[in-house]
């Protein structure tokens, strides 16, 4: 079969375990797979960043600001390889690459979250959505086979990745839609956690709407 990333032909080794558990063979070749680095080892217990202290300095600040976000879990480290793959997925729009993340995303999610949660993907502005054709956060959420609530709408139109750190902290990015989140356990889903400004603001907006126990889950922790 063809590797979903490099398109090289490769053969996966069949095993009895695969037959018995009906586990699917990997969609990408071992070489591509090995270049994704999962987040493991000592991490900040709030935001998943690699850290030797239990709660990192950034998260202490979030705590002081009384952010409604309880914690964040992420799957992968942001390395050059990930940058390349995410660029092709998100900006070039190669949707099929989502398959390369499926099993890791599901495994990490089920390790940290129970199955009684509702997923809220971070929305794109209408113009950006039309440009890309799909919302990457929604694509990631769709891997989890859990109920998705489109509770947020984006107000501003500026790309996060074009803003400086300072700019990301000012202004309101989201407003609520008609969807009901009151009393629900929510996991906000996004592609990448950089400063955390996006998910923390989304959490605060959802908190005002009555959501309880708000966490977040991102594909990457940069």
């Amino acid at each position, binding site marked *: *079969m*063809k590797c979903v990333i490099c*398109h090289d032909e490769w053969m996966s080794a069949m095993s009895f375990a695969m037959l018995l558990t009906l586990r699917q063979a990997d969609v990408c070749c071992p070489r591509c797979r090995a270049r994704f680095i999962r987040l493991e080892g000592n991490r900040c217990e709030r935001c998943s960043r690699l850290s030797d202290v239990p709660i990192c300095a950034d998260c202490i600040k979030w705590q002081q600001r009384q952010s409604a976000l309880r914690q964040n879990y992420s799957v992968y480290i942001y390395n050059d390889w990930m940058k390349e793959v995410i660029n*092709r997925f998100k900006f*070039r*729009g*190669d*949707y*099929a690459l989502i398959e390369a993340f499926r099993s890791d995303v599901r495994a990490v999610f089920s390790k940290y979250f129970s199955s009684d949660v509702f997923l809220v993907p971070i929305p794109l502005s209408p113009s950006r*959505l*039309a*440009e*890309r*054709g*799909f*919302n990457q956060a929604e*694509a990631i959420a769709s891997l989890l086979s859990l109920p998705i609530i489109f509770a947020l709408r984006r107000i501003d139109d500026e790309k996060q990745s074009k803003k400086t750190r300072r700019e990301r902290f000012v202004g309101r990015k989201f407003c609520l839609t008609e969807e009901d989140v009151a009393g629900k356990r929510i996991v906000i889903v996004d592609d990448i956690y950089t400063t955390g400004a996006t998910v923390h603001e989304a959490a605060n907006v959802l908190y005002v709407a009555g959501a309880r126990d708000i966490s977040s889950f991102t594909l990457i922790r940069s």
Partner: protein
Amino acid sequence: MSLVGKQLLKSEISFPYDEKHVQIIESIVKTKRGYVCVRCNNDDQQLFASFPCARCGRICMYCRKCIMMGRCSECNPLVIWTGPIPSTSFSSPLKWSGKLSTAQQLASDEVCQAIERNDSLLVWAVCGAGKTEVLFAGMNMALSQGKRICLAAPRTDVILELAPRLANVFPSVDIATLYGGSQDRGKLASLTVSTTHQLLRYYRAFDVMIVDEVDAFPYSVDSMLSYAVERARKTNSSLIYLTATPNEQWQREVKSGKRKAVTIPARYHRHPLPVPTFEWCGNWQKKWRHKQLPSCVVRWVDEHLEKNKQAFLFVPHIDFLQQVVPSLQQLHPRIEGVHAEDPKRKEKVLAFRRGQIPILVTTTILERGVTVPNIDVAVLGTEQPIFTESALVQIAGRVGRSAQYPTGDVRFFHFGKTKAMVAAKRHIIRMNDEARKRGLIDE
């Protein structure tokens, strides 16, 4: 940015254009045998995928093969320019005082003729023949007649090397240099130097199409290449292919006279091409399981370290390369390995050029383009399928490039001779014979 001479995806166009001169067609079509991408001609069903599209609200099919050039999908048509393309002519823009060798001159005349008559021509020139100079006269003529030229090559490094050379000899001509991430994207110049991928954005735009190193294209983009070339050039235009190693089919076509070709069988310095010698090295893969290299290979390495002569050692796979380099470093700490995805690739090649690395172990990525004077080469595991005839001819072509050091040793260590090895050796001998016959070699 303008649409003149191009075919762009609707989503790429954010500027006004003249709708009279435009044709809009679907970029993905469904045929009886499955989907086909109209832009890149991909018909491999494994390289199509679909997604829930926010633009059209449906499950939309898209082409994964040319995705790096923007997404061709069912709801994103191609907008093609069908109107006139303005032309600019220059009066003899060539500023070059070099002299061509006899064989180069002959080839140069043929190129001029092909451009004049809108013919196609294959220039079959050995490694180190000086192919680029052969184009100058023809390009000069074309530019004087107001023709638009495109020079396409497979890889960005080749483009980045060619563009400044051409800018140097055609100082008054506007040149567009196109590769992934280049600043000139969307430019329509009198002279375009482009990777094949970027050609996908052009439609019936060029009067002269020159394709460099045709054989260097990986097999998978092969069909895309000819398709892109055909779409990017005008129906009435000339097509010139340059190569040192045409594939078997082309060689046959040349022989039978079906394909018009001109050969440059000798290097500009008038010395014969070094002929490879075969040396059986036994089952080197089995030996390597005990972390041992064949003794003849170790001897070869030792000799070069002793003589202080630099060399490339080609190996078949990255995995083997990464294992063997640490072991060779025990013989000499400055031996290095380099492969396609090596982030330090440029630095290592540069260090080798400066003479700081005695032996550079490499996969086939260095088979072309890298020219270092006074080196030897060897291949370990020459029988492996990755070493095709053309790869081996190119590898042998690294040796004896400079007039100062026109000779050198080419050694193929193997575990059983292959057709490719024999063909490569015969290819080189035949070129030398032809060169002798035509009096292009001094001995």
